[in-house]
């Protein structure tokens, strides 16, 4: 199955390939991340790479970028053999890379981040003013607008990614590698990114795109390679393949790409939120009066561009509103009023009331990366009676329980002693999902359940969420993936600027209608909401 495609989507006949990798191998200690890999990418094409979590995609691209040194193999660029010893060499060879986890300095401005490592001289001032000019040019050419004087921590992830792309372009990259660029983007942002990428390709630049989303592969790439367990299993023209085919190549079995679920049979109201407001410590109103109800046996999906209050909503419901913020309104679960401040407003108390929570960021909130998997399975429920023996924790009981959950959720490797850090993102997510779902909560809060997770795992996680609903539980699902929202939810609410813009049934709406709502436009009233904040 080792078909190497000779030609990309553009006619480039006999020209040498922009990138040619031959026999690349790389191991980390005992783990072989890449095994004898060949890859050929034509100039002026977009080449996709897909594969399960941990298949070796990021490693391969990091080698190309000089970030890791291969154990064996050869790199050719434009037909010429290159030794890329470090990232500086890669940059000089015209390679730019946007890493899965951005390499930006959080408290620097955009401009400072852009020139870092590519300054013109010893003093910053000339570099900064030149970069400002170049940036303006790039912004015009590629619709890459960012405020050069904003610090990174104040930017949305989408904008942070623009900065990463600008960094590469500023260094005049001809080859641009993007590692899971859309994992954190909203659909609109992703569309924008693809427009930019197409523009770059049309200018003759070569783009390598790592992604878990087959839709994106089909939409934008010219050719695609599939990796599995450190090996390259296929390279094909995108036009000659199908999502199902790719999925099967990738996972090694048939994958259901759509969720099958029975119609919902909603019962009593489990969660009732009434006029919930939050003002944060800087005085900005983050939630402006949220009203919503979720009943037993239904999934309420919340769509919206990230940063419109979803995070705050999840945090408040989860019992840990941001420090220094002021709350008002009412939250009831199963009819009981929850406190919004004070000693009884904490996550442990909420769990006792039957609220489970899969947080948006598994690595920062959901897991303690240095803890073993079994400890993470108890995390948050560590004072549960079945985990205790007198004043101490019953480790045997926890491990038994953890092993069983890991088994049921097909976490790989099924080793409950391994530190969470050493699982791939998809498997980390499965640990969190297992922990929360298996507690059988009356209400489950879910934030971005499948961010960065491979399709095999997505299929699995979606199925479990639906199972929980069918068991008569209420689910609040927050996701920036419209596909996910549309296919999982029984009702969809769209959040914009701290408000619910409207509610729709999945069958009665379209992606474009939701998109408008997400942008703060209510198409039914044909009257745009004011974009400015209330005084």
């Amino acid at each position, binding site marked *: 199955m080792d078909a190497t495609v000779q030609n990309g989507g553009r006619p480039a006949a006999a020209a040498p390939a922009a990138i040619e990798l031959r026999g690349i191998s790389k191991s980390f*200690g*005992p*783990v072989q991340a890449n095994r004898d890999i060949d890859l050929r990418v034509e100039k002026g094409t977009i080449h996709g790479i897909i594969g399960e979590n941990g298949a070796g995609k990021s490693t391969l691209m990091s080698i190309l970028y000089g970030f890791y040194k291969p154990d064996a193999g050869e790199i050719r660029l434009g037909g010429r053999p290159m030794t890329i010893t470090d990232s500086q060499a890669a940059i000089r060879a015209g390679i730019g890379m946007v890493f899965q986890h951005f390499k930006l300095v959080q408290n620097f401005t955009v401009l400072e981040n852009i020139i870092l490592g590519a300054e013109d001289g010893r003093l910053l001032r000339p570099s900064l003013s030149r970069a400002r000019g170049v940036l303006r040019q790039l912004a015009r050419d590629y619709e890459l607008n960012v405020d050069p004087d904003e610090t990174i921590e104040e930017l949305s992830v989408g904008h942070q990614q623009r900065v990463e792309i600008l960094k590469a372009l500023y260094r005049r990259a001809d080859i641009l590698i993007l590692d899971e660029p859309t994992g954190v983007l909203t659909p609109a942002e992703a569309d924008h990114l693809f427009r930019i990428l197409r523009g770059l390709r049309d200018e003759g630049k070569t783009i390598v795109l790592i992604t878990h989303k087959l839709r994106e592969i089909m939409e934008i790439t010219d050719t695609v390679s599939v990796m599995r367990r450190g090996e390259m299993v296929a390279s094909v023209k995108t036009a000659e393949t199908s999502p199902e085919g790719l999925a099967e190549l990738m996972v090694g079995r048939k994958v259901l790409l759509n969720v099958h679920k029975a119609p919902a049979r909603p019962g009593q109201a489990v969660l009732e939120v009434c006029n919930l407001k939050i003002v944060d410590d800087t005085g900005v109103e983050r939630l402006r009066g949220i009203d919503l109800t979720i009943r037993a046996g239904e999934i309420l999906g919340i769509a919206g561009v990230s940063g419109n209050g979803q995070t705050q909503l999840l945090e408040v419901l*989860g*019992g*840990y509103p941001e420090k220094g913020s002021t709350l008002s309104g009412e939250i009831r679960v199963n009819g009981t009023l929850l406190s919004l401040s004070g000693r009884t407003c*904490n*996550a*442990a*108390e*909420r*769990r006792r009331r039957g609220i489970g*929570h899969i*947080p948006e960021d598994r690595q*920062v*909130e*959901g*897991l*303690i*990366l*240095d*803890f073993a998997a079994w*400890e993470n399975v*108890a*995390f*948050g429920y*560590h*004072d549960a009676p079945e985990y*205790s023996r007198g*004043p*101490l*924790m019953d*480790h045997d009981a926890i491990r038994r329980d953890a092993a069983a959950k890991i088994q049921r959720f097909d976490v790989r490797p099924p080793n409950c002693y391994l530190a969470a850090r*050493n699982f791939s993102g998809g498997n980390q997510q499965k640990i969190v999902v297992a922990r929360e779902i298996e507690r059988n909560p009356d209400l489950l809060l879910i934030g971005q359940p499948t961010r960065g997770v491979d399709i095999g795992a997505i299929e699995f996680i979606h199925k479990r969420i639906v199972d929980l609903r069918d068991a008569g539980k209420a689910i609040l699902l927050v996701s920036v993936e419209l596909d996910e929202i549309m296919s999982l939810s029984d009702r969809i609410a769209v959040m914009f600027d701290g408000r619910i813009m409207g509610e729709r049934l999945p069958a009665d709406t379209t992606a474009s209608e939701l998109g408008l709502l997400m942008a703060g436009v209510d198409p039914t009233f044909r009257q745009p909401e004011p974009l400015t904040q209330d005084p």
Partner: protein
Amino acid sequence: MDTMPKWADVILTPLISLVLAMAISALVILAIGESPVVALTTMIDGALGSSYGWGFTLYYATNFIFTGLAVMVAYHASLFNIGGEGQAAMGGLGVALVLLYLPLPHWALALPAAMIGAAAFGAAWALVPAWLQAKRGSHIVITTIMFNFIAAAALNYVLVNLLRPVGSMDPASGRFPESTHLPKLSDMALALGFEWGRNTPVNISFFVAVIACILVWLLIWRSRLGFEIRAFGKSEPAALYAGINPVRITVIAMLISGGLAGLMAINSVMGEAERLVLNAVEGAGFIGIAVALMGRNHPLGIVLAALLFGFLYQGGGELALWTSIPRELIIVIQALVILFTGALDNMVRMPLERIFLAMRNRGS
């Protein structure tokens, strides 16, 4: 991941590091014109060669176990407690007040009472920095450093003006009542019918220290509180998500830490000096940092590191006492041991890993 068997990492690496440290120390000794062989044999003989030497080694180790545990507990909550020195000094004050002013007819009563006094004073001295860190975000490293200085001044004031017997030159309290003197290990050995460590200060506090190690181990790795402390130490946002209260954990961890540091006083003040002297801590609070870090913040490691430092203290003391080698040499040796086993350990580990990987690849 695991390129090296665990035993190699836990035993071989520190051992080779220790040998390297000793080799450099030998060079230093040569450089000042003394004989490394004599120095080494004096140290080993003096510290480990007799029950007498062991008696001192264990006495010092007891101090270091307490301060090491103190640093460790705070460290697991990601708090760097440099205040062991001041907390231990205050613990000494607690011990002295209890023993001087409470009528305690027997050591078996005096010990728990003194332990409560020591732990309470030590913990109280840690409370303000803890609270300021939790509530106001004042950096605990500065506040605990400041509290060391403040403790020194306060203790000086109390000893000179309040606890010093009239007419005494010595800024020290009076002697504690005879009835409160702790049994020495040597006495216990005699009671069992053999002679061990006569005239050495190691006393029953050593067992208290060992028990403290076990309790701290249980606390950190077996209890819910310990789970919360470690979780909070690794990630504050995750702790919030799990319903762990940062203020509560910060304060509790520091109270336990300060209490443990304070407990050192039952060994040095109650067990050895039997009165409170101005300089009762003698830097053990700072050694505790090295002990905890070298012991990889695990009670077992702390016991081993404390023994190592006990050995260096006693062996070095012997060196200073019985040879013409200046006592500062011991400080240099300590520095080298800390450096090689604590900070340069990767210098040994990296080549070892390569060797083990090569062996495994050949094997498979």
